[in-house]
């Protein structure tokens, strides 16, 4: 070693007094290019926490974290993306996939912090200087990583559909179903919204995989009516589907139907593992509608001996007698019900409780009872002349048609009401060759019927007359005709809030003569079969039960569900009520099995 090498460390010290050769920060801040992929901006109010950004991120730089202020919003997971800038590679795939188009990037790229954990942040929730930056990478308008438009469903035209009671919707082919399934981002927002919490992303994946048997198994975990719901479900899942925010929602209902249609009912027992271990308990179910049969199915799978009492000659309730076959063909409904029966559910048809079998006898004979008797009594208009023989009930017309009977409506019909029964009565009348006016007290936008029912009834040339209030039914002197007097309404804001109320304008009255008038203004329950002593112990408000936890009534043996116990009055809610009650009855009758909970 030379002397210079030995002394050089001491000479280094002279550098300490020299001007630095490097800059502490760049002399000039250089802004990022206008479309630079800089720090993330999330419009947290528009974001619905679908987690597509998290799923697509190849570096696992995004976690979805709960944010209190967004918790509990409908169609929102309550989660928001949290970025780890130690991992992010600024590829912008998260921006490109964002279903709500809430995620962007600013053109900011400098951020100094001493603590490395500072570089983890929840965009749009934690204040950052670049949150309001307009520059930076935004997804180009019209650019999507998945097709925004759903695969069109092959349907009969309106002109074709009114010619018969054939099913209007033809269903997807396998190729179409796979293309539609490919659009799903698997976020699961739909699962939380579906009353039955069906595992939608996984059964849609089974279509992509071509594994329809797994799809069927997944559906039966929470819904024993997939063929039915694949056709007439109110599909609230689609209303919250994030793909629908910037495009059209995934056709979840049609995909469900596709899976069921691929599997022959002969294979159900093998696929769904029908082995049942009897547990010795007996449960009675009153009403063989979707709520009652759902409870029966899940109770039977748990080993209960289940007897269903049904007043009609076959099962299905409103699905059978209230939903016309052009929306739900009998063979689709039978596919669901036949499998439920095949697992050992005993249905006693044509049996009226309170007449053929006494309610108090059931209370003594069974370990638990599930009541799901629906809303079967049509509401009356209570206007003068309503008892005219040419005034028919919408429910009766639909039931007659379901039984293959001619309801005798004639060629010119007025339907009163704006719910699904009214729409179906009108569309059935069109198929029977009648011209139809639908009179509704409020505006079309306030009709309680499903929007697609309203749209299709209009396409089928039902004449929808809004703000029309019936005031009197008058005899024409002919047994084949009837006249209705109705007045125009003005919508007036309710001083106490809520939806506007129609007010009759007595100076704007109309009369019109029809071959018949079909009244479909609503339905109520008939609980007369329950003995008064029992009725007094049950909480019943305006004809409906008010169930507690697990659909239990005030009497420990009695559980309730379906339209007679919920506000939504749709099939999927009834199905979930039945499933929920089955779990409740199981907890009630086998408390030891749940002791650890």
């Amino acid at each position, binding site marked *: 070693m030379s002397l210079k090498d030995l002394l050089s460390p001491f000479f280094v010290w002279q550098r300490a007094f020299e001007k630095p050769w490097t800059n502490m920060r760049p002399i000039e801040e250089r802004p990022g290019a206008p479309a630079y992929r800089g720090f993330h901006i999330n419009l947290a109010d528009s974001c619905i926490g679908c987690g597509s950004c998290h799923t697509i991120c190849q570096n696992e730089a995004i976690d979805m974290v709960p944010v209190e202020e967004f918790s509990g919003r409908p169609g929102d997971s309550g989660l928001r993306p949290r970025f780890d800038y130690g991992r992010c590679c600024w590829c912008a795939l998260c921006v490109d996939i964002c279903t709500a188009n809430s995620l962007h990037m600013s053109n900011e790229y400098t951020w100094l912090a001493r603590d490395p954990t500072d570089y983890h942040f929840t965009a749009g929730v934690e204040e950052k200087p670049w949150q309001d930056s307009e520059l930076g990478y935004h997804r180009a308008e019209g650019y999507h990583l998945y097709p925004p438009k759903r695969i069109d469903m092959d349907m009969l035209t309106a002109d074709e559909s009114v010619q018969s009671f054939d099913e209007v919707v033809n269903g997807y082919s396998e190729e179409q179903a796979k293309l539609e399934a490919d659009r799903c981002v698997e976020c699961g927002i739909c699962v939380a919204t579906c009353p039955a919490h069906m595992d939608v992303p996984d059964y849609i994946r089974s279509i992509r995989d071509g594994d329809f048997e797994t799809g069927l198994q997944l559906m039966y975990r929470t819904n024993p009516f997939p063929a039915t719901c694949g056709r007439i479900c109110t599909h609230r899942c689609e209303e919250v589907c994030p793909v629908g925010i910037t495009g059209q929602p995934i056709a979840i209902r049609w995909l469900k139907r596709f899976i069921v249609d691929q599997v022959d009912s002969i294979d159900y027992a093998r696929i769904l593992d029908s082995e049942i271990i009897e547990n010795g308990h007996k449960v009675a179910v009153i009403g063989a509608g979707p709520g009652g049969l759902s409870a029966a199915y899940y109770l039977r799978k748990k080993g209960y001996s289940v007897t269903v009492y049904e007043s009609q000659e076959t099962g299905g309730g409103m699905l059978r007698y209230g939903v016309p076959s052009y929306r739900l063909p009998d063979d689709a409904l039978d596919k669901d019900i036949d499998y439920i029966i095949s697992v050992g559910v005993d249905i006693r048809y044509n049996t009226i409780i309170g007449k053929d079998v006494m309610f108090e006898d059931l209370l003594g004979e069974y370990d638990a009872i599930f009541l799901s008797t629906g809303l079967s009594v049509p509401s009356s208009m209570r206007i003068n002349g309503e008892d005219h023989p040419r005034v028919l009930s919408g429910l009766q017309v639909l039931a007659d048609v379901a039984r293959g009977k001619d309801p005798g409506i004639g060629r010119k019909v007025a339907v009163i009401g*704006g719910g699904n029964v009214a729409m179906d009565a009108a569309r059935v009348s069109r198929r029977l060759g009648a011209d139809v006016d639908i009179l*509704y007290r409020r505006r079309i936008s306030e009709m309680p019927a499903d929007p697609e029912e309203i749209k299709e009834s209009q396409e089928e040339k039902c004449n929808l007359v809004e703000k029309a209030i019936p005031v009197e039914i008058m005899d024409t002197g002919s047994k084949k005709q009837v006249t209705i007097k109705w007045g125009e309404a003005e919508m007036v804001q309710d001083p106490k809030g809520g939806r506007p109320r129609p007010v*009759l304008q007595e100076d704007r009255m109309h009369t019109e003569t029809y071959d018949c008038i079909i009244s479909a203004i609503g*339905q109520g329950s008939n*609980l007369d079969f329950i003995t008064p002593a029992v009725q007094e112990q049950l909480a019943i408000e*305006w004809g409906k039960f008010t169930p507690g936890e697990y659909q239990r009534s005030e009497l420990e043996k009695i559980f309730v569900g379906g339209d007679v116990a919920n506000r939504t009055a749709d099939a999927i809610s009834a199905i979930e009520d039945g499933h929920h009650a089955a779990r409740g009855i199981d907890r009630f009758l086998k408390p030891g099995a749940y002791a650890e909970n």
Partner: protein
Amino acid sequence: MNTVDEILDYAIEQEQQAADFYAELALRAEKAGMKQVLLDFADEEMSHKKRLLAVKNGKHELTPEEEVLDLKISDYLVEVDATDDISYQDALIIAMKRERAAYELYTDMAANIPDSHLKEVITGLAKEEAKHKLFFESEYDDRVLMDN
């Protein structure tokens, strides 16, 4: 009835009679849940009575000038009987029609009374009845005319 007190006593008595009517009907009601509904109606009438007592005692003022929305629902409905098996719909129809009859009675009385102060009081009572009618008609609109 020539004085304000006499008119108010009459109105208070009418509210009490209405409450008694619903309470008695509740005792007879056979349909599930109807007892409670009718007892709620009776409570509603008692709250009307209380309000009129407050008017009589000078603690509350009638508002004869107030415009009250008239939905005209009960005007075109048929009369129904207060039977033991009365339904929700019919109970509401009875309630609406009773309030309507009271409103019309006070309106007619006000039209035939020359004394301006008394006329004002009776018109105030008519407006009270119009509000009660609106209450029951709104219930009917929400609960019975759901699909219409």
